[in-house]
């Protein structure tokens, strides 16, 4: 028995290299398309080329005649199966029956009409082209405001007004606030439709074992357990006979937080043909048929006193839902409403949401899901107010922030902000950027006729989703920790990371709590037959909720190990730390591995203690967490072409405590890149007839390395009291903070020309037109 023990360094807060990387960096990680099953068939989905049409008939004879075609399924085959599920429970919500395949009509370009199954994917694709669908095109509407206009084509004939729901939320007394106001600023602000574009598209393999009557579904998803429950429901099969496995997942950003028709279809087809069947989405399909994000038209009114005190906000929010509800489609704009007050103290909010059907692919959660729209709105409005009152945008924010001593803070929309010190990141960002100096330089540049802008955004977001009351399927997360007889540790997490690095973060937590080397820890996720039920990874919840569940499971496990240690040392006074149990009196110790062996060999057991070392914890968070931060952007606009150059990008994010700076930096940079994408380049464009014009990567301008500015990123750390780790969540912060800061900066640059607002994306053409307009 060892007597001198050196306590290992804690890993919490350390820039530890990622455990995931060796397999990713060598190309040996297995993503969905890398999996092959004996006898595997391949499916290709026939999709509607029309935004709206009646299906008069489908002729599959030519396709069936192609050698190698095994089966073809059309709408008629799946009429009796369940619908693609929507988990929203908004009162009065109109829910169109979302069949797995189109029945007598198609509602958007990319709508699945038939599935062709062949012995290889080339045959399946060729045969898909041979399926003759007789369409009778009907009028379509792709713009949510046009869809609301009288006489617009009805997306679903049964609801001619195209309204899926109205939702109202109110806090305080907005009417009174507006009566008291000295100034009211009003603006229509859009958050354009975006295409999430994970570099790996979606994909599914379904394997049916006829003998066992069991089905294994491999899917590139963020929510394996929910997928299992819901697909079992669609197929009417017992949930325990369905197993969902997520292979390596090549990015999701919300687009794989869903249950898609193809997932249920492949499961069904595998049973029907009694062969494994694989479907991998092409990039163009991904653009047409995987959910899009955003799609807001917002009408804001902000009331304030002349000294800059904000009194209240009114909002009419028009949400482009697309043709159907996917899992959370209608929920997203309600999240926007929740975050409408931003970081500010005003207590009066009145919001009306109308969810509108359009002949487009459904919108749903995309990185930020509702919060970027809210932040963009309020942060733009605050800037417009500052412009109106000739106040400095930093000053007006500082004046209206919730004070550091007011937490927990109850908002007008019924939330309780957990902790914060909102002025801190703003001051830090301003200091780092040299705000005063920047303003002086701006004045000098303007005197030369140059268009230089400085933009701020101070954002707040709602993370770590969330208490179960707020999430349809529950908001907790689960973790199991197993110490194996050899002393190695296995973690089973209900979270389903796909790039967030939680195999590393979680191993850090385990290493710290148990005192074992990180390399002895294996984090397993994404297999419903191995991992207890979980909710999944989205809404910046993986570490804050999943990590907390793990933390508590570790406490249970430690308590049990301590009992073994105490028994082995023959004393009650033991300390468990650094991988040892130590007799406080004598300094004698037993090692982690020795305790593990004792627990499994079970020759002798502590009182009231079972053999084995396994602990499971389901953790329900008492509240959300509310990260916040400040982004500051300096831009210059080229007068001749309207091109924008980002000269400085400074961001200070407060995401609570930081477990691994390497991973956090990556999330911030990646998040900012997506925010920049929205601010400057990206837009899903449907034309009048509902064709997706930006239907391929050439036309959908993703951020490229050459266009990324140098990001000066730092943090303040205000721990969250909500969870034992003090973390808040970082997956979406960069995206949420970015776009308003960029737009505020460009508007500031153009403000000498009288520009007050510009909708995203800030394409050179838009900017150029504004400059030209001012010239004329």
């Amino acid at each position, binding site marked *: 028995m060892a007597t001198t023990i050196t306590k290992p360094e804690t890993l919490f807060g350390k820039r530890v*290299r*990622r455990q*995931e*990387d060796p397999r*990713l*960096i*060598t*190309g*040996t990680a*297995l*993503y969905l*398309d*890398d999996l092959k099953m004996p006898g595997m068939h391949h499916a290709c989905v026939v999709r509607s080329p029309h935004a709206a049409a009646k299906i008069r008939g489908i002729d599959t004879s*030519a396709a069936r005649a*192609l050698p190698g075609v095994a089966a073809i399924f059309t709408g008629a085959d799946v009429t009796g199966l369940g619908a693609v599920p929507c988990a929203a429970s908004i009162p009065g919500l109109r829910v169109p029956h979302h069949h797995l395949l189109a029945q007598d009509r198609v509602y958007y370009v990319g709508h699945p009409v038939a599935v062709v199954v062949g012995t*290889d994917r*080339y045959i399946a*694709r*060729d045969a898909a*082209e*041979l399926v003759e669908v007789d369409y009778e095109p009907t009028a379509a509407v792709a713009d949510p405001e046009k869809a609301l206009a009288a006489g617009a084509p009805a997306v679903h004939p049964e609801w001619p007004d195209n309204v899926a729901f109205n939702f109202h939320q109110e806090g305080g007394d907005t009417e009174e606030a507006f009566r008291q106001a000295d100034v009211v600023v009003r603006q229509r602000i859009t958050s354009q439709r975006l295409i999430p574009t*994970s*570099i*790996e*598209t979606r994909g599914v393999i379904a394997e049916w074992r006829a003998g066992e009557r069991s089905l294994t579904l491999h899917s590139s998803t963020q929510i394996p357990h929910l997928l299992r429950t819901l697909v079992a429901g669609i197929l009417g099969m017992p949930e325990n006979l369905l197993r969902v496995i997520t292979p*390596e*997942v*090549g*990015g*999701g*950003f919300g687009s794989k937080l869903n249950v898609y028709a193809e997932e249920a279809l492949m499961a069904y087809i595998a049973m029907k043909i009694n062969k494994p069947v694989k479907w991998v989405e092409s*990039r*163009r399909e991904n653009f047409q048929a995987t959910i899009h994000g955003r799609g807001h038209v917002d009408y804001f009114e902000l009331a304030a006193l002349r000294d800059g005190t904000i009194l209240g906000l009114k909002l009419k929010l028009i949400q482009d839902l697309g043709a159907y509800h996917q899992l959370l489609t209608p929920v997203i704009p309600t999240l926007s409403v929740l975050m409408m007050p931003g970081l500010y103290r005003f207590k009066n909010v009145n919001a009306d949401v109308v969810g509108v059907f359009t002949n487009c692919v459904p919108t749903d959660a995309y990185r930020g899901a509702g919060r970027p729209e809210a932040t963009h709105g309020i942060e733009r409005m605050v800037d417009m107010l500052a412009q109106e009152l000739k106040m400095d945008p930093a000053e007006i924010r500082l004046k209206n922030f919730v004070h550091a001593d007011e937490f927990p803070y109850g908002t007008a929309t019924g939330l309780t902000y957990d902790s914060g010190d909102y002025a801190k990141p703003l001051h830090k960002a301003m200091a780092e950027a040299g705000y005063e100096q920047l303003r002086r330089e701006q004045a000098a540049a303007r005197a030369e006729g140059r268009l230089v802008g400085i933009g701020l955004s101070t954002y707040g977001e709602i993370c770590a989703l969330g208490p179960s009351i707020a999430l349809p399927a529950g908001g907790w997360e689960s973790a199991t920790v197993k110490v194996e007889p050899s002393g190695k540790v296995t973690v089973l997490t209900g979270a389903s990371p796909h*790039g*967030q690095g939680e195999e590393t973060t979680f191993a850090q937590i385990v290493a710290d709590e148990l005192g074992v080397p990180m390399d002895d820890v294996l984090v397993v996720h994404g297999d419903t037959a191995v991992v207890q039920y979980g909710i999944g990874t989205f809404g910046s919840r993986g570490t804050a909720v999943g990590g907390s569940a793990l933390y508590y499971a570790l406490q249970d496990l430690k308590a049990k190990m301590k009992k073994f240690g105490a028994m082995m040392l023959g004393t009650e006074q033991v300390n468990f730390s650094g991988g040892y149990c130590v007799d406080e009196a004598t300094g004698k110790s037993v090692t982690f591995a020795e305790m593990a062996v004792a627990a499994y060999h079970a020759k002798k057991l502590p009182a009231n203690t079972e053999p084995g070392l396994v602990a499971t914890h389901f953790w329900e968070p008492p509240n959300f967490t509310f990260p916040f931060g400040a982004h500051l952007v300096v831009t210059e606009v080229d007068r*001749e072409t309207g*091109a924008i150059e980002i000269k400085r990008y400074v961001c200070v994010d407060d995401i609570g405590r930081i477990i691994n700076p390497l991973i956090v*930096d*990556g999330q*911030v940079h*990646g998040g*900012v*890149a997506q925010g920049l994408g929205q601010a400057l380049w990206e837009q899903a464009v449907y*034309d009048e007839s509902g064709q997706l014009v930006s239907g*391929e*990567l*050439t*036309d959908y*301008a*993703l*951020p*490229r*390395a*050459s*266009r*990324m500015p140098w*990001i000066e990123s730092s943090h303040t750390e205000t721990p969250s009291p909500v969870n034992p780790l003090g973390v808040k969540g970082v997956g979406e912060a960069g995206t949420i903070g970015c776009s308003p800061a960029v737009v505020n900066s460009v508007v500031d640059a153009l403000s000498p020309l009288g520009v007050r607002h510009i909708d995203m994306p800030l*394409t050179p*053409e838009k900017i150029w*037109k504004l400059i030209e307009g001012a010239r004329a």
Partner: protein
Amino acid sequence: MLYTCPNRPKCHVSRPLNAMPISISDPATLVFQLNGEAVSIPASCSPQTTLLDFLRARGLTGAKEGCAEGECGACTVVMVRDLDGRTVYRPVNSCLMFLPMAAGQEVYTVEALAASGSLHPVQQSMVDHGGSQCGYCTPGFVMSLFAEHYRPGRGDGACDPHSMGGNLCRCTGYRPIRDAALALTAAPPDAFSRRLDAPAPPITAIASAHFSRPATLDDCLAILARDPDARIVSGGTDLGVESNLLGRAFPHLVSVEAIPDLRIFHETAREIEIGAALTLSEIEAAWKTAPAAFTEWLDLFASPLIRNRATLGGNLATASPIGDGAPFLLALDAAVRIAGASGTRTVPLHEFFLDYRKTALARAEILVSIVIPKPVPPIVFYKVAKRRLDDISTIAAAFSITLGAASRVTAARLAYGGVAPVPLRCIQAEDILTGSTWNRRAVQQACAAIAATLRPISDHRGSAEYRLALAQSLLEKFFYECSEAAE
């Protein structure tokens, strides 16, 4: 290893495709080196099978499909090529390479890098800097960086992050990847370094019914004359996209890569002649006296990955109205040499583009080279796109103004892409400028002529109004930049 080749082109076609095997008389010509091991391309394979599909069917999971259209770089692999007399690693988009084009060549995938069990320095640097999140893009980045790491003459400093300009990542925001590149130093003196001491594999001839790579111009002309279905492929960056995404079937692909006449770079006192099948990267290496504007132009053209395959011949022959090659070469007053059954002719480039995607090339004719007269005049190139680099132009413009005594314009060439169905020169505006004094007034008159003659279209990349205004404001911008430079 048993391997079944996907024996059909990846297609969306409205009729059943007959499997069109390469059906070759001499299968020995269809061997290539893959990660140091000889592999054969099955003769039953369709020539439209991509190198990417072949690799993945072999169980190599490193290269991945992210788009099949050359945009994302997830499919990046490295080839050993000759570059201006030096052996180099060239990263390419394997999704746009027709498999038989790899015959006789030497290809490395990410699987070769850590074959010894420990990570390659490039991989280690990516790990150290957090360069991977979901990992889907990662092997592609690694391969681009690998090629950069071993670039001869790079020295022992940092790697250039721009070398990864053809790779998209949606997770990292690129910063850690850039840091990984900047942290690298000299390439290790390992087997990969030593490989570059030996010559690159030659590009060998292949003859078959459905894929040919003739070794001479005459052979090539004979094939084209004989087979009406024959279609020239050069770098394949346009044709590959047509094959993968538009479902075009090419019954007989004829690669011009092995024809010496198309791979020349000659500079004489009178002209510069650039072989139509030289890749843009090869031209960059060969053209030592290129004007600065050429390098700027090149930087704006697609991505480094595409430039390693894309050729000038392909760019002109495809005659895209928004192609970047034409405006640049039009402003240089270039001509093209065309070979056909009846001999060779030279056509001024401004007479080459006849109509939308229609050129002066007759059936069975080959574009052999591009000729730029000397002295090469000063020239500027502008490209306006959503993202300036690596993007399709909304409009492209190239201007060349030669001034004589007293700032009198002796020659003016104003060339545009994206303003008409064909790339063109605005002769009316040129005429106004020629002979005038190079001043604000002349430029304004030229702009008026531009406004009166160009008729761009509107699409989602830009409205007609914006394009027309840009065509003028770019000329103004050029004028101001000239005056600033003169001050």
